[in-house]
């Protein structure tokens, strides 16, 4: 089972190493991890998707992470009403104008953006939930995908209360 975890941590060197090191030491699998600035300059938000057998397993790793000195707050977003987004960029080879037209079409159906066009390739960008990204990639697989880069999901809870006050 995959869980989306939000971690608020002091914005200090080594924080990400501490967090990821701990998760792997405790034999949990990190599916994705990303981090970025927040509304508070001293705080980094780390978004992780971990694979755990069940909630008990998950809570163990949350308890361990809560012990990390730089960690301010950890919330299991999966159990809350939340909005979840990921961004993907896909570079597809185009060898004919027919293919290019196809891809532009697909992109518009998915409300994706064409963010770069070359003589022999286009780059499509899509933001959305993971199944939507999967569906796009599935479609594009009919063509020749040259490379994919994705951010890993980030999530915010719904409602007025931010994670830091939970």
């Amino acid at each position, binding site marked *: 089972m995959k869980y989306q975890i939000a971690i608020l941590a002091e914005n200090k*060197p080594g924080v990400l190493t501490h967090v990821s*090191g701990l998760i792997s*030491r405790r034999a949990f699998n990190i599916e994705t991890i990303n981090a970025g600035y927040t509304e508070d300059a001293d705080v980094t938000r780390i978004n992780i998707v971990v694979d755990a057998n069940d909630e008990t397993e998950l809570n*163990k790793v949350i308890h361990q992470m*809560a012990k990390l000195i730089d960690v301010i707050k950890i919330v299991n977003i999966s159990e809350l009403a939340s909005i979840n987004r990921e961004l993907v960029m896909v570079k597809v080879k185009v060898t004919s104008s027919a293919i290019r037209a196809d891809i532009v079409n697909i992109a518009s159906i998915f409300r994706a953006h064409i963010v770069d066009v070359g003589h022999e390739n286009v780059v499509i960008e899509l933001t959305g939930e993971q199944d939507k990204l999967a569906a796009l990639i599935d479609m594009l697989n009919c063509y020749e995908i040259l490379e994919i880069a994705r951010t890993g999901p980030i999530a915010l809870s719904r409602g007025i209360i931010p994670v830091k006050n939970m």
Partner: protein
Amino acid sequence: MEGSAAIIKCLKENNVDTVFGYPGGMILPLFDALGRDESIKFILSTHEQSAAHAADGYARASGLPGVCIATSGPGATNLVTGIATAFMDSVPMIIITGQVDSDLLGKDSFQETDIFGITMPITKYSFRLRKADELVVVLRKAFELANAGRKGPVLVDIPKNLFFCDVPYPKYNLQKRETDRPDADFLICAAEAQKKILQSHKPIIIAGGGVIFGQASDELRKFAEKYNLPVVVTLMGIGSFPADHELYMGFAGLHGRKSANCAVAEADLVIAIGSRFGDRQTGNITEYVNDKHFIHIDIDPAEIDKNVHSSIGLAGDIKIILALLMQQKAVDDLAKWWNRLNELRKEDDFEYTGAYDVPNVMHHISQTINRGDYAVVTDVGQHQMWAAQHIERFKPRTWFTSGGLGTMGFGLPAAVGIQIYYKHDRRVIHIAGDGGIKMTGSEYYTIAALNLPIISVIINNESLGMIRQLQKVFYGTRYFSSEFKYRMNYAEYVNSFGIDTYDVHSMDEFVEALSNAISENRPKAIIVNIDKEFVEPMTKMDCGINTFIKF
């Protein structure tokens, strides 16, 4: 103020009076400052690992962070085993390592090692100092962290140039941290726990090292007495409960007392206090859990539900929690359970025949030191288990051993730190095997140089006894690398440091040697030359703690 002087001042501010360590280029400025300071005692070890174990021993004995300093590169890496040992047993420590100059960092400079990265998983926190003006703040924070909650080692890595920088010394606002008051949820849990205790028919307490670090021995005794609860202890919990108390069932675990393990196996409620359900304690978890209820009391919330799923978890200060749990009126209807426990006790009453074997040697030590002012420090191996089984301890901080990491070589350097802390209040009896003593035996130099009155007992079974035992049980008696065919003279070895030694070959000789060693207040070593044996009982860990291997 110069960086190194600020460090000294900060150490004093935290009541540090002793520092252990070993010099080298990158830490020399701090040595220079220490040398010029009169009030902090510096103990030079013979190896950085030993300096770390000595600081660890000092901390275990005093309850205050042990401080140890070393240079960058090999000095720092030599500390690693010592730091990991302290981490596994939750011992507060401050480790200061020198580092290459800031402008040489990241260039693979001479003796540059990323000790910050290396120690990340074996410290509570490690700091990599970058700016001089953070020095004092970071060091204070390090002390705070080492001491707070579940204690542990904290490392501060300091580039050499920072020792010379002019650093600010901000005023120290000693904030008395208020202990968190239990909230409503907590009180509900506590009330439920009391109900569980009163409802259970076969309750038992497992007391671990957390009781000792939490200074909760008195509360533990009162709590057990109030509800008439049997108490077993873990390897780390020895001394947390008086061994001659009528509620005491002894040491439980892989090599624990049969009756203690059987009692835990038969219990319907386990109240674990400051113990983490380590695998040496529980064996196979499914067998162990087997319909039991658990109340888990620990300072560290991450321990609750980590290894066993407890019915009720109470995370916080053990002293406070035990006080909370004593508010109910006791109803004592445990007579049946106690009948059963007494039956178990009778079944495995060990008979001390006075024969020349390690259990009888340990028993003699126990009888001799009894309730006197002694502390027992062991190394790791068979002798450690025999000591745990047969040497009775009555007070906290009179039993020291490497539990979580099981570090061979821990004993002698730890004994140094402990003896230095106890000065003349308690004399240290150190017990080692002939294997482990060759790992850190160079500390006899420190002991001799400082004339520390440690009595060192080396159990010479001409083997890595514990390894030989594992090969007997699990590898078809194929002894490999576990028997010392080549003989050496341990008495001459220890003697070469200038320490009186007794080479013992019989019980009578041992009795005489121990009594002589005790009669003089200086370093002594007794070499107990003895046959190879197996430590019994040994539980079949994969079956259940009440099943035992036959030898």
